[in-house]
């Protein structure tokens, strides 16, 4: 019991754990829609794009959150509109928009070397740096995302399933996608401190694809994916504390191990079914 409670005497661990649980659950919840739209790379890409925005905000002495969220939102919209209005595929659009933005960040950092140290935390996640302000932002984004998904559940589901057809049935797909892009950008900003730019992509994708292996139901996928994300956030924080590795890496590693276990379990079940059910035809 002491092993579980001891880390909570430190304020950084309390703040970090609250942030990790909320961010883990939130990323996994939003990730369901990302995975089902075949845009798994967007989390990885947008987190890099936001990095560019954060650097620009720093140089122009803007508020970090305002600068990074605006930048991420514009990048997400650009990707969406490029995919909708051209023949360019989602992965290519994500690659172009977000890598260009990341490159801008890197270029600015190399030009103004004086602040490069503080951006290490943004790249790899730093649980020590989670402030009450960060937690307030994470709570606000969690509430906003949950509100949107709860009240626009059906519209989001239809838009994710088939955007074009949803439009015919009166779903305001442009606004739904715009709202989703804004929420996604906000989630990534909220998650940067705890996960780090390089790990957010996995936190968005791994829990949903793990649960997807185990269920064919959309609402179960959303519920269990969120629970898995939050749980791995909590356990990942303990791992980070006791093994002394970065919080983002420990959460993502844990999620990846669970994914491998689910994959192994599903493969075994399928193989068993195939052996029992499939008749083999051939000459005797």
């Amino acid at each position, binding site marked *: 019991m002491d092993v579980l409670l001891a880390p909570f005497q430190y304020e950084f661990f309390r703040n970090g754990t609250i942030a990790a649980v909320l961010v883990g659950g939130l990323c996994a919840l939003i990730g369901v829609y990302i995975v*089902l739209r*075949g845009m798994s790379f967007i989390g990885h890409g947008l987190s890099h794009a936001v990095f560019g925005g954060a650097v620009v905000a720093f140089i122009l002495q803007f508020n970090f959150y305002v600068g990074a969220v605006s930048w991420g939102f514009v990048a997400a919209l650009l990707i969406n509109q490029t995919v909708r209005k051209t023949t360019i595929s989602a992965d290519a659009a994500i690659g172009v928009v977000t890598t260009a933005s990341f490159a801008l960040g890197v270029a600015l950092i190399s030009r103004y070397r004086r602040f490069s140290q503080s951006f290490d935390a943004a790249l790899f996640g730093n649980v020590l740096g989670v402030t009450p302000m960060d937690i307030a932002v994470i709570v606000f984004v969690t509430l906003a995302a949950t509100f949107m998904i*709860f*009240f626009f*559940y*059906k*519209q989001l*589901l*239809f838009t*994710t*399933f*088939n955007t*074009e*057809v*949803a*439009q*015919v*049935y*009166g*779903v305001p797909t442009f606004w739904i996608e715009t709202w989703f892009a804004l929420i996604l950008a906000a989630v990534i900003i909220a998650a940067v401190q705890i996960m780090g730019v390089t790990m957010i992509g996995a936190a968005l994708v791994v829990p949903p694809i793990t649960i*997807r292996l185990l*269920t*064919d*139901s*959309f609402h179960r*996928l959303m519920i269990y994916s969120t629970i898995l994300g939050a749980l791995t956030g909590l356990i990942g924080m303990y791992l980070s504390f006791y093994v002394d590795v970065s919080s983002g890496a420990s959460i993502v590693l844990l999620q990846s191990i669970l994914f491998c276990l689910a994959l192994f379990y599903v493969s075994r079940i399928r193989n068993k079914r195939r*052996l*029992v059910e*499939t*008749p*083999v*035809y*051939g*000459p*005797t």
Partner: protein
Amino acid sequence: MNPLIELNGVAFGYGSFNVLDDIDLHLHPGQFVGLVGPSGAGKTSLLKLILTLLTPGEGQIQRVRPDLRITYVPQIETVDWSFPVTAEEVVLMGLDHRQNIWPWPRRRERKRAREILDRLEIGHLAERHIRDLSGGQQQRVFLARALVADPEVLVLDEPTTGVDVRSAENIFHWLTVLNKEGMTILLTTHDLNMAAAHVPWVVCLNRRIVAQGSPQDIFTEEILGDAYKGDFIVIRQDDLIFVQQRPHPHGLNDVLPHPVEGGMPNHDNLVNNAQPVSASKEA
């Protein structure tokens, strides 16, 4: 009676390539219209223009009322079959989402979805994942989604692609029943024989409207030849019309690139000698 949808001088293209030119088409209440034509003739583009998913380069598309209820059954190939939804969940997507802000369906909404699935004889499959249904059942699920919205105009893109002959016949039967109940239907199809048997008004399209009228008037060797740029055989027997593209003038030996050593294997012998063996028993 005013047409529900009216297209006047409509032209559309992708970039500099014109897909449709000078399209004049009126869809009247209670009509059942089939669009036929070769691949690339612009059938799907025309449907998307009518559904306002595309904007015409030239001409006008008018609806009798802005709030005309139109629903759409897309080509089966556009559906992501791995998406985690059941047949019932797909049907519920068709309901007006503004009527119920909660994420879960009301009891009467589920009842309505079940009624339509039952009517299309797939009520017992409501809880099944869409991937686990046959082609004909999948098509009926998407037809049910279109019907749950109680449309005035039903638009279907290739509703019989990828389904067997019996399922195709069933789908056209349902569409005929719905049309007889007053629903206006517009569909595209590659199945000329189904169109000849079931669709009362046929529009033959190849970038422009080649001809339109009853199947008796449209399914002629001249008109089909003009639209498809091919050689067609049209056989009429009683009220039935059979359409067949004339085969190329060569036999099987001309198609095989090299003579097969020892002759072709006898398919009948292979099948007759094959016996089912359970893998588990074998193990």
